[in-house]
């Protein structure tokens, strides 16, 4: 698809340079291998992969593997924080809504979830910046660290956490809404089951019923869903990282598109696929922990 967009990396570089002769541009194309036909370029790329070599980004003048490794921790941190927040708050809100079904809390959660889920992530991000960074000045505008930030390891951790608040909450909101809705629906079904009546007959408290009997059994569909959603969290990270200038893989991908840096982009796709596969594996293993009926063959 990227090939269908007019222009290539050389056009970008030449455009930035201001003046470049056609001869110079041809020379660059030959150096980057862009003069060969598309299929040959792709074959060359796949051959490199066979040697576990992701190739070289001429745009950044760095090996792509190093480029990605530099950015990976930032993205993992952002996604991890966002998913943790979404699962934690989503379960809580969904459980409260299911427990007090039809009540004020339930309606508030439903409306909140519908609104948030329907709002584009980038718009939420921009509004968060306007409100919390520009107007209230509670949080920084963007970036991951402050230049000349607080000294020491603890200071650095605190600084990153401080920068993380807005992007992570923005990224988590849509998923939070989704988890809240799924949790509420799953718990609603479990509430009608016979063993909940058995639990009630024991005379234990409603809170205990909600947590130990209902929520515990409703977790399975929620986990299934979050497994399916992980891929799209990576997609959401592209938008959020761009809005908050978070130095992660998502922003790298965005830059790669605008720079027509095809090698880099292909490698990013590959890495994302690997991440999704690993996360799906983790989810599958989680089933074994959550549901005693699923037994892992040893």
């Amino acid at each position, binding site marked *: 698809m990227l090939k269908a967009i007019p222009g290539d990396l050389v056009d970008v570089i030449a455009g930035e340079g201001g003046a470049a002769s056609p001869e110079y541009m041809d020379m660059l194309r030959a150096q980057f291998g862009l003069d060969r036909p598309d299929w040959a370029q792709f074959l060359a790329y796949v051959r490199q992969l066979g040697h576990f070599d992701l190739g070289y980004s001429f745009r950044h003048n760095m090996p792509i593997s190093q480029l990605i490794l530099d950015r990976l921790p930032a993205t993992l941190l952002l996604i991890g924080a966002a998913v943790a927040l979404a699962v934690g708050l989503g379960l809580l809100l969904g459980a409260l809504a299911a427990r007090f079904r039809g009540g004020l809390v339930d309606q508030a959660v439903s409306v909140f979830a519908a609104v948030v889920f329907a709002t584009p992530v980038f718009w939420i991000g921009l509004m968060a910046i306007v409100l919390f960074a520009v107007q209230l000045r509670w949080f920084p505008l963007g970036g991951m660290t402050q230049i000349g930030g607080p000294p020491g390891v603890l200071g650095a951790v605190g600084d990153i956490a401080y920068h993380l608040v807005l992007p992570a909450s923005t990224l988590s909101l849509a998923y939070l809404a989704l988890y809240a809705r799924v949790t509420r629906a799953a718990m609603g079904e479990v509430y009608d089951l016979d063993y909940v009546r058995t639990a009630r*007959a*024991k*005379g234990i*408290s409603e809170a205990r019923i909600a947590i130990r009997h209902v929520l515990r059994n409703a977790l399975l569909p929620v986990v299934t869903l979050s497994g399916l959603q992980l891929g799209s969290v990576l997609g959401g990270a592209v938008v959020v990282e761009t809005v908050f200038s978070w130095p992660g893989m998502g922003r790298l991908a965005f830059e790669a598109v605008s720079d027509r840096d095809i090698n880099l982009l292909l490698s990013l796709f590959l890495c994302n696929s690997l991440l999704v596969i690993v996360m799906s594996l983790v989810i599958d293993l989680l089933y074994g922990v959550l549901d*005693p009926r699923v037994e892992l063959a040893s």
Partner: protein
Amino acid sequence: MSPSLLEVRELSIGFAAARGVVSAVERLSFDIAPGETLALVGESGCGKTVTGLSLMGLLPSARIGGSARLAGQEVLGLTPRQRRKHRGAPIAMVFQDPLTSLNPVMTIGAQLVEAIRADRPVSRREAADYALHLLERVRIPAPRQRLGEYPHRLSGGMRQRVVIALALAQRPALLIADEPTTALDVTIQAQILQLLLELKNENGMALLLITHDLAVVSETADRVLVMRHGQAVEEQPVIPFFEAPRHPYSRGLIAARPQPRPRFGPRPRLPELVDSGEFAG
């Protein structure tokens, strides 16, 4: 008759429906003496189960009228909190389907301990010991091992034993058994009924047995209460009930059973008996 353990007077249960209130039970009155077994029989939908659930306070959305006194204490008008404190101890219930009555993600032991500790403040260790004792009392093989197992590992009959153990956890004075054998095959049915009777005699519990199976009734009950369309139609001790049912509907129920020596021709079906002129009385 000895003084009643449970006195139900004019019990009415209705459910709010799209148009008005659908009545499930109307002005039902009965008594159960300590240690007695009362069988509540009738067709599907006649209000048997709902009666049991209302005594347990497990019908939050129903409109319940009348009174039910257990050892002199009203059990119908209680707030949810009072009801919870009361429920386990004096009344417990065994449910219809053992396959779905246990939480699939909690071990048998954890579910028993939860019931024991809901009733009285004992340590986990004491509760675990008592859970083992309960499983022994319901005669489950290898009880110690069962404590750590999940319900899906157990057969239907064993699960029903666990459900009975759960009901016994709070030493009830009255046990409501709602079709306790419906989901089980015939040999297991006999074992579970035998177990219920033994436990009843050991503990001096009263038993309210909800069933549509007259064979079960004849083997276990002291008295029989027949319900139809939410109303009591006949109440008698069990032997006179089978020898000389007073109400035509009861005669219909008894006649609808399979006979050991079938008469020629089709056996009369309940609606035919009911619709014939016989039922006018």
